[in-house]
């Protein structure tokens, strides 16, 4: 465990030192080789000691602005272009073709350059500048136009169409279908890709900018270690090295520059400490009709003869199925006729005949209750977080009032803001601890988990209560509130740290 941590934080510092700025872990396998070599180097441990140790529930990540993304792309294109001796348009196509896997591209190219160029849609002599041509006796296969003097264009594949049709075709692809990096020749079955130069020649300026936007988008979409921040209108992307296969053991929570906190694994908002797969299951469970089914099985019984579902909403135990007219006892599910004279009072409960059905009933009821226990608490924290958010909006006003009422300065009332943010974050965590707990198997660790959960919950409720105090009392509560805030945060860290470690160990 420990050595692993050291190794990881050692890496992060090394990355920043060795690669300037944002470039670092782009080069997947190359980077890995690098790390393996450098690992035994003790020099880094000194570096590490200077940095605060990373918590085991935290991951390394980096936020990219749109300009950064563009820069990155260009940088890699330049690099590849220099190595392969291809013009940058061709290098860009090659990189996009291999989904920005630089190492694979270089390797494949070194082995079979022609084959790589061919599959990427770049035939021989891709370096020429494209031009439109007027061909004598030409008929466009798309619009059937055959007027003499028609401007035509063909990619290297030689499939020639009039420029109008080409333009229409590209506009359709870019505007309506949102395609950019992999627009192919209009001919069916021809996989030649329309390169940036041809595009520049054929397409109007306003579409060109759209094309650039789409290209940038595919860059982020293509790279496994890059993801868009899912917040509305946010243009940033996050880089994080956590792989898909690690998601069962780690919850990679990242915070964008726009302040949105989300899980890099599934891009849902922060759901620590519950791992992605569990979150997915839980959300599905909560949305699903499966709970309706649970209700049915807990509150209804089936007719022992025809299996119609029956809800008993009153009356005695003598049931007559409306469908098949079967008469049975609601209590023991046995035949009514066997009840003899003990009519409205079933004393045959020990009888074997109905006991299986009763067992199933009880189990289903129990599992529903268990689910509701966790769900209610989960939903409660979600609801409270919403209320706290309203409160957060009011906090600002409170801070203003406090400034005028108590003569405190702006900086002195910041504790309210800090407290409110802590509250939000803790509730988010608490909410997911309940979903998490639902799937936990009972053992010693669950008890520790539940203790941690309880401690955090109490701390949160305590802090939440203080927020409801009138503004006039807040100034006097300042120290207390700051204490509680830091206590909340501490409890949250402890809980997350503990769960993350167990998760990593695969408990």
């Amino acid at each position: 465990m420990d050595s692993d941590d050291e190794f990881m934080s050692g890496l992060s510092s090394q990355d920043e030192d060795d690669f300037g700025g944002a470039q670092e872990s782009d080069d997947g396998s190359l980077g890995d080789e690098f790390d393996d070599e450098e690992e035994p180097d003790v020099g880094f441990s000194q570096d590490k000691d200077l940095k605060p140790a990373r918590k085991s529930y935290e991951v390394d990540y980096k936020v990219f602005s749109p300009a950064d993304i563009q820069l990155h792309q260009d940088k890699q294109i330049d690099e590849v272009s220099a190595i392969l001796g291809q013009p940058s348009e061709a290098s860009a196509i090659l990189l996009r073709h291999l989904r920005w896997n630089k190492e694979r591209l270089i390797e494949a190219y070194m082995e079979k350059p022609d084959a790589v160029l061919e599959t990427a849609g770049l035939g021989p002599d891709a370096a020429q500048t494209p031009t439109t041509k007027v061909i004598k006796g030409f008929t466009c296969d798309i619009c059937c136009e055959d007027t003499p003097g028609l401007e035509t264009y063909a990619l290297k594949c030689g499939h020639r169409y009039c420029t109008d049709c080409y333009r229409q075709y590209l506009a359709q692809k870019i505007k309506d279908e949102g395609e950019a990096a992999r627009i192919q020749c209009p001919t069916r079955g021809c996989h030649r890709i329309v390169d940036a130069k041809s595009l520049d020649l054929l397409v109007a300026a306003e579409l060109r900018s759209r094309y650039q936007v789409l290209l940038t988008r595919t860059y982020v979409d293509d790279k496994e270690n890059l993801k868009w921040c899912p917040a509305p209108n946010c243009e940033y992307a996050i880089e994080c090295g956590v792989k898909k296969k690690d998601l069962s053991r780690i919850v990679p929570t990242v915070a964008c520059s726009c302040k949105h906190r989300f899980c890099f694994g599934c891009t849902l908002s922060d759901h620590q400490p519950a791992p992605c797969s569990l979150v997915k299951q839980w959300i599905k469970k909560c949305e699903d009709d499966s709970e309706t089914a649970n209700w049915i099985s807990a509150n209804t019984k089936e007719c022992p003869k025809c299996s119609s579902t029956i809800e008993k909403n009153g009356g005695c135990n003598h049931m007559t199925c409306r469908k098949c007219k079967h008469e049975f006892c609601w209590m023991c599910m046995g035949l009514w006729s066997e009840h003899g004279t003990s009519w409205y009072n079933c004393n045959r409960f020990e009888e074997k005949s109905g006991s299986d059905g009763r067992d199933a009933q009880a189990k289903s009821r129990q599992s529903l209750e268990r689910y509701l226990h966790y769900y209610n608490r989960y939903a409660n924290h979600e609801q409270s977080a919403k209320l706290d958010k309203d409160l957060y909006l009011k906090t600002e006003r409170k801070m203003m009032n406090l400034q005028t009422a108590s003569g405190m300065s702006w900086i002195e009332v910041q504790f309210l803001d800090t407290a409110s943010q802590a509250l939000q974050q803790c509730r988010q965590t608490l909410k997911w601890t309940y979903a998490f707990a639902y799937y936990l198997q009972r053992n010693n660790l669950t008890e520790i988990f539940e203790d941690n959960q309880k401690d955090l919950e109490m701390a949160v409720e305590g802090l939440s209560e203080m927020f409801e105090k009138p503004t006039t009392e807040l100034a006097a509560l300042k120290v207390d509130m700051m204490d509680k805030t830091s206590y909340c945060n501490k409890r949250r860290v402890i809980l997350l740290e503990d769960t993350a470690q167990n998760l990593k160990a695969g408990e």
Partner: protein
Amino acid sequence: MFANKRLGKELAKIQQSLPPGIDFVSAPDFKQWEMDIRVLDANPLYADQTYRLRFRFSPNYPIEAPEVTFIHLSQPLRTIPIHPHIYSNGIICLDLLGTQGWSPVQNVESVCMSLQSMLTGNTKNERPPGDEEFVRRNTQRPRDIRFVYEDSSV
């Protein structure tokens, strides 16, 4: 319009000659045409049957794919052919009719031929999986459906 000139030329050619098994039915305007197709071999699933196709063109045809569906008629009798890629409401799941697979070089005739060979090559007497559910719930036009093409064998 963009589509009209091309459709005019296609129509002229279609009225002159068509491959065997493909017949022109009607083209009242440049928005909607109907064609008949039948298989040429003795495939027991489709032998002695004729099927009616409806083409709907957008003004952007042939840049955009036409919408092509089988339609049901009682006079003359036209049924929906049974095929693992044809839903019982006539909607066809075929990549060349989607934005990814469509090429503006395709035309009404080539689409008819593709569908003809899709029928000829089929031996499975079945509807697509989930047909009943799809047909019951589908309120969309074919062009708005996102098909996932996973089976290239049929």
